[in-house]
C-alpha cells in the first residue's frame, strides 16, 4: 500500500499504526536505488514528499529549524558555510533537488555528508510520535552504531535544530573524494566555532557512524588556535577516529587524512574568525 499523506500528522499516524512494516520514503535517492537493484520497498510505503510543509525552514529564538524534508539544494543556499558546502558536495543537482536531510539522517550512512556537518553544528533532532509527541535528541547521541539510530520504528524525524547559527564565528567543511564531483566521501570533516571559543569537529567515513571528535575538541578547548595547538589537535584526531580498511580506502589513509583535514579546517576557522574580529 502506498501512503501519500498531505500532512505530517497523518504521516505520524500511519507510522505509529504500521511501525516497522511501513517504509518512509522522502527523496528516494537511497531507497529507490535499492528498489532498482531488486530490493522491494516493502508492502507499505509512506511517501513524505507530499507532506505540504515538510520542506520548510523556520527560526525560533535564534535557532534554525529545518523540517525533515528540506532538500540538499535548499541547504546549499543556507548561510552556514560548512552545511552549505557539505550539501553542495552531495551528488549532482538532480540528487540535491530530491535528497532530504531527514533521509540522510535516517539512512545513517557513516559517509553521510549532511550528518557530519550537522554534528559539527551541534544540531539536535526532533523525533516525533503520533501520540507520545516529540522528543529532542542531540545528533551526537542519535547515531548508535553502524546504520542504527535512536529513531524508533513508529517514529519519524520531524525537525532538525541548529542552535544559534548567526552567532557562529566560523565554520568549515572539507571532503575528499575520488573525482571532482558526485563523490561518496573517502573522508569528510566539518568544524564550527562559537564566539565563546568552543569548537566542534566532526568526521564522516572514519567510524561506523558519523562522529564528533570529542577528545580533540576537549584538547582544543576554547583558547586561541595556535599552530602548535592545531598540530596537536591533528595528532589527537588521528588517534581518535576509528577508520576501517575497505576497498575504497585504507584505514591508514583515512586516519592520515583526518590529521590533514583537522589542520585545514582549524586554520580555515581561525582565518575566518580573525576576519570577523
Amino acid at each position, binding site marked *: 500500500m502506498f501512503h501519500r499523506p498531505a500532512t505530517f500528522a497523518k504521516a505520524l499516524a500511519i507510522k505509529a499504526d504500521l511501525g516497522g512494516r511501513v517504509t518512509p520514503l522522502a527523496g528516494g*535517492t537511497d531507497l529507490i536505488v535499492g528498489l532498482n537493484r531488486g530490493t522491494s520497498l516493502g508492502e507499505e510505503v509512506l511517501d513524505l514528499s507530499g507532506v505540504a510543509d515538510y520542506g520548510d525552514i523556520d527560526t525560533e529564538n535564534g535557532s534554525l529549524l529545518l523540517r525533515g524534508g528540506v532538500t540538499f539544494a535548499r541547504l546549499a543556499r543556507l548561510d552556514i558555510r560548512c552545511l552549505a558546502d557539505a550539501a553542495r558536495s552531495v551528488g549532482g*543537482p*538532480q540528487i540535491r533537488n530530491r535528497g532530504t536531510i531527514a533521509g540522510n539522517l535516517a539512512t545513517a550512512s557513516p559517509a553521510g555528508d549532511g550528518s557530519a556537518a550537522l554534528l559539527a553544528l551541534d544540531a539536535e533532532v526532533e523525533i516525533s510520535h503520533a501520540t507520545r509527541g516529540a522528543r529532542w535528541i542531540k545528533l551526537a547521541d542519535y547515531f548508535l552504531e553502524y546504520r542504527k539510530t535512536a529513531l524508533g520504528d513508529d517514529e519519524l524525524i520531524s525537525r532538525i535544530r541548529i542552535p544559534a547559527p548567526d552567532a557562529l564565528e566560523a565554520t568549515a567543511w572539507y571532503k575528499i573524494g575520488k573525482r571532482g564531483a558526485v563523490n561518496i566521501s573517502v573522508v569528510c570533516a566539518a568544524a564550527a566555532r562559537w564566539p565563546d571559543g568552543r569548537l566542534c569537529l566532526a568526521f564522516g567515513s572514519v567510524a561506523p557512524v558519523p562522529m564528533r571528535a570529542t577528545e580533540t575538541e576537549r584538547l582544543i578547548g576554547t583558547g586561541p588556535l595556535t599552530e602548535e595547538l592545531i598540530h596537536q589537535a591533528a595528532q589527537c584526531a588521528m588517534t581518535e577516529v576509528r577508520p576501517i580498511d575497505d576497498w575504497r580506502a585504507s584505514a591508514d589513509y583515512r586516519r592520515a587524512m583526518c590529521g590533514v583535514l583537522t589542520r585545514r579546517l582549524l586554520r580555515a576557522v581561525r582565518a575566518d574568525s580573525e576576519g570577523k574580529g
Partner: protein
Amino acid sequence: MAWHLECTINGSAVERDVPEDVTLLSFLRDHLGLTGTKGACLEGECGSCTVLLDDEPACSCLVLAAQVHGRRVTTVEGLAHGDRLATVQEKFVETGAAQCGYCTPGLLMAAKALLERNPDAGEQELRVALEGNICRCTGYASIVEAVQLAAREGNP
C-alpha cells in the same frame, strides 16, 4: 496495488493507474512509450534519466511515478517547438555535443533547468549544473560550448 496518478507531462494532463513501485523512468518509457528519457545506472550517478519536476532536474530513476502526483513533468520530448528544435537542442547538434547521444536527453534537461533559472550563469555555475550528468563520449567541451551558446541566444 495500483496508484491512481494524476500529473502533467509535457503540458498534457495524464491520468493513469500505475503500480506503486514503478519508477517515473519506467512509467515514462514502458507505460507511456516516451523512450527519450534514458536509464543507464539507475542509482542517480549518471543523470541520463533526468527530467524536470516542476522545472527542477531530478533523476526519474529515483522517483516513484506515484510521487509525481499533482506535479509537472517535462521530458526531452517536450523541448522542441513542433518541428523546430529548441535553441539548446539546436546548439547541441551544432557543436557536436551529441555524439552517441545517449546522455543527451538528460543533459538537455539539466541544461534547460539552468538556462531557465540563470541564463547568465558563468562557466563554473554551468559546470555545477551539469555535474550530475555523465558523458562517456565527448569530454564535455562541446557540451559546455553548446550550453554557453544557447545561453547567449536566450530562449532555451
